[in-house]
């Protein structure tokens, strides 16, 4: 019973927090560009409007993939926020992203197909670092369960500073922010229109937006895991660090230009290779 209530709370509160984060993001971005920006609740207005609009069906299956993607991302959020297995989290998160890519391939629009191909390249770019994060956390804590990882005496960041930096680097992919917003974007892109979401409208587009809110919170939860320990103060610090990291991502988003996919892929692999392996090697040789 308690579990059911927790699950329902996670399903409802996660997109609310994600939507607020998106609204905060749009205000800060506008201020960085010298504008006033939309109201804080703007992302919710957008989604509520999309729910009322006509949903155009390009073919029989293309909306199905987006809803399945949302389902898997919701499942990821539940497993993660209940303190479940971090490996399961990563695998289901990847599955959700894969279904989103299928959604891009499903419509024959060249823009969404290019977007889907770029999304696959992005997944190739960021996945190694995600697995390195899980490996590092296991090496330090001897467990894959998030609730055990965050209830130790010393937070994982003490042992994994380089892996954390690498994770922040690939977070830009996950949050779909410049310089790595190659596959899909809110801002009109010259060569890509809106990438994977080009052919989606109405309720299906609203589902894509809500999926992204869940994903932002999941990404922030990864940051949280690095800083949380068994003291209350560490949880407060972890929350503050999450906000600082998000603010940093917004500033990066507004001060960089989109890179080509070659640059995105190689730089992500170099960063994950150097920082991830260095961190694991140091841990191994000094036997922390």
């Amino acid at each position, binding site marked *: 019973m308690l579990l059911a209530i927790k699950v329902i709370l996670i399903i409802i509160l996660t997109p609310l927090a994600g939507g607020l984060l998106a609204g905060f993001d749009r205000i800060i971005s506008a201020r960085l560009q010298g504008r006033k920006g939309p109201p804080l609740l703007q992302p919710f207005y957008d989604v509520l409007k999309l729910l009322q609009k*006509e949903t155009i069906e390009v073919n029989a299956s293309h909306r199905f993939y987006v809803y399945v993607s949302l389902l898997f991302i919701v499942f990821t959020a539940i497993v993660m926020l209940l303190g479940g297995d971090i490996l399961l989290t990563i695998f289901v998160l990847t599955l959700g992203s894969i279904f989103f890519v299928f959604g891009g391939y499903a419509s024959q629009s060249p823009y969404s197909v290019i977007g889907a191909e770029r999304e696959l390249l992005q997944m190739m770019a960021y996945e190694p670092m995600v697995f390195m994060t899980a490996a590092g956390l296991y090496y330090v804590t001897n467990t894959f369960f998030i609730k055990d990882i965050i209830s130790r005496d010393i937070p994982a960041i003490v042992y994994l500073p380089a892996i954390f930096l690498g994770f922040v680097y690939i977070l830009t992919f996950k949050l779909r922010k410049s310089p790595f917003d190659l596959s899909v974007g809110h801002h009109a892109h010259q060569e890509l229109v809106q990438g994977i979401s080009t052919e989606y409208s109405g309720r299906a587009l609203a589902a894509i937006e809500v999926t992204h809110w869940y994903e932002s919170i999941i990404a922030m939860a990864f940051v949280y895991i690095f800083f949380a320990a068994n003291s209350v103060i560490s949880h407060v610090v972890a929350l503050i660090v999450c906000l600082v990291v998000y603010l940093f991502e917004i500033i990066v988003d507004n001060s960089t230009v989109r890179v080509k996919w070659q640059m995105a892929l190689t730089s992500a692999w170099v960063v994950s290779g150097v920082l991830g392996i260095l961190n694991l090697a140091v841990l191994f040789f000094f036997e922390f």
Partner: protein
Amino acid sequence: MNFNKKSPWILHYDGSSCNGCDIGVLACLTPLYDVERFGVINTGNPRHADILLLTGSLNAQNIPVVQQIYDQMPEPKVVAAIGICATSGGIFAECYNVVGGVDKVLPVDVYVPGCAARPQAIIDGVVKALSILDEKQNALKGR
């Protein structure tokens, strides 16, 4: 409750405009006017758009393009003709290739005359378009 007024997404198409009105449309998005305050986004994608802003007169070549863009937009949708060329053909009305204003092909809801239409006038036109969008939404619900 309708949320159209809170989040109007715009698609801008340049018919055969001299770029004067296009610059007017884009100026609305700059820090000086900042229409994103009201939730306006320039989507550049008909599938996401609520309001179609057309600048410039229609000619034989762009009629199928304009029609396709209009058909790709999900209901409810409104069309605003920006500038005198889009409303009636303007000084180009007599040209051999020009068909006339946008209303020769699409059902236009709002006319914003002017050469070039000022950003203030365009914002005013979009606000008028929003109340029409609201009516259309209610009509869809009643169906």
